[in-house]
């Protein structure tokens, strides 16, 4: 409002705006300005909440869910890392890790213990992905409702799809960004990578067979035979779905895998969790 210091500025345009109407206009503009500033602050808060605070909150509820399932095997620091070239100084002391003996592994879904589908939002399994770090372990809970499962508990199981180890398609979804982002590095998975699922009674080791990027309507991704709806399954498959590209709803990133073997819990760790991918 830098106006030249002309004397008697009010006299310059006396007919157009009386002081009264000018005051009303000022009040309206002031009100609009305050509303806009408030809206800007709220939007800024929303972005901060979505990008950072959801990770904090969801990370907490996810680790709580992991703590609650008493049978989940804790992650072990593998002895093999001592031979890595990245180590500075003395190699870390080896940690003895019992591996599942070969004769307990069953290289087929036959005889695998398959748990019944639990109630929504019940955590029934853990997922280990060696490609995402030997310390990557996340809870898997029933359902794919955003508010009740995916935003709070992380990875969710598509209701009605097969359970771990069963013939059919064990289909799970997870956030790629925000809310603890369990599938943030899904694009780094390669053919042959292991996806290890643990339930109370068994380990299920799946191998990645491929990935694809499809539209959100591509429901064939979670069909009993992945990508081929209507066919009768003979294998135990796994499907991971998440959004693509990051921060977008445009496409879905889908990773498929097939069961390599299963083994009962209590006799050691799958070697896939110990070896470097």
């Amino acid at each position, binding site marked *: 409002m830098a106006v030249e210091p002309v004397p008697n500025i009010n006299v310059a345009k006396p007919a157009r705006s009386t002081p009264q109407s000018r005051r009303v206009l000022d009040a309206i503009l002031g009100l609009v300005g305050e*509303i806009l500033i408030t809206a800007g602050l709220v939007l800024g808060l929303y972005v901060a909440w979505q990008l950072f605070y959801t990770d904090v909150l969801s990370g907490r509820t996810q680790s709580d869910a992991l703590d609650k399932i008493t049978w989940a095997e804790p992650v072990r620091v593998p002895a093999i890392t001592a031979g890595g070239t990245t180590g500075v100084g003395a190699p870390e002391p080896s940690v003895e890790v019992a591996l599942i003996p070969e004769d307990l592994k069953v290289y087929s879904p036959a005889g695998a213990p398959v748990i019944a589908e639990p109630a929504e939002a019940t955590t029934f399994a853990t997922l280990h992905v060696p490609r995402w770090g030997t310390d990557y372990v996340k809870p898997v809970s029933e359902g794919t409702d955003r508010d009740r499962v995916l935003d709070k508990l992380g990875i969710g199981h598509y209701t009605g799809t097969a359970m771990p180890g069963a013939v059919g398609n064990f289909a799970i979804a997870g956030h790629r960004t925000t809310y603890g982002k369990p599938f943030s590095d899904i694009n780094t998975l390669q053919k042959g990578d292991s996806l290890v699922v643990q339930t109370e009674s068994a380990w299920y080791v799946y191998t990645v067979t491929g990935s694809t990027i499809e539209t959100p309507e591509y429901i064939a991704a979670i069909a009993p035979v992945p990508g081929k709806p209507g066919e009768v399954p003979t294998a135990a498959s796994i499907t991971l779905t998440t959004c693509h590209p990051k921060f977008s709803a445009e496409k879905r990133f889908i990773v498929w895998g097939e069961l390599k073997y299963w083994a009962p819990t209590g006799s050691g760790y799958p070697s896939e969790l110990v070896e470097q991918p």
Partner: protein
Amino acid sequence: MIYPWIWRHLPGPRWARAITVALLLAIVVLSLFEWVFPWVSAQLPYQDQTVGGQ
């Protein structure tokens, strides 16, 4: 307009009003974080990760 009005209508001396304002602000931010933002986020499609129109 809104904010000066609130300030004028708060009771007590200046420091008491400041505390009330801080409290009100905390309540607003908390309710946004707890209820409003989670609801808004679930309405927006940008975070969806499922197939089949959930």
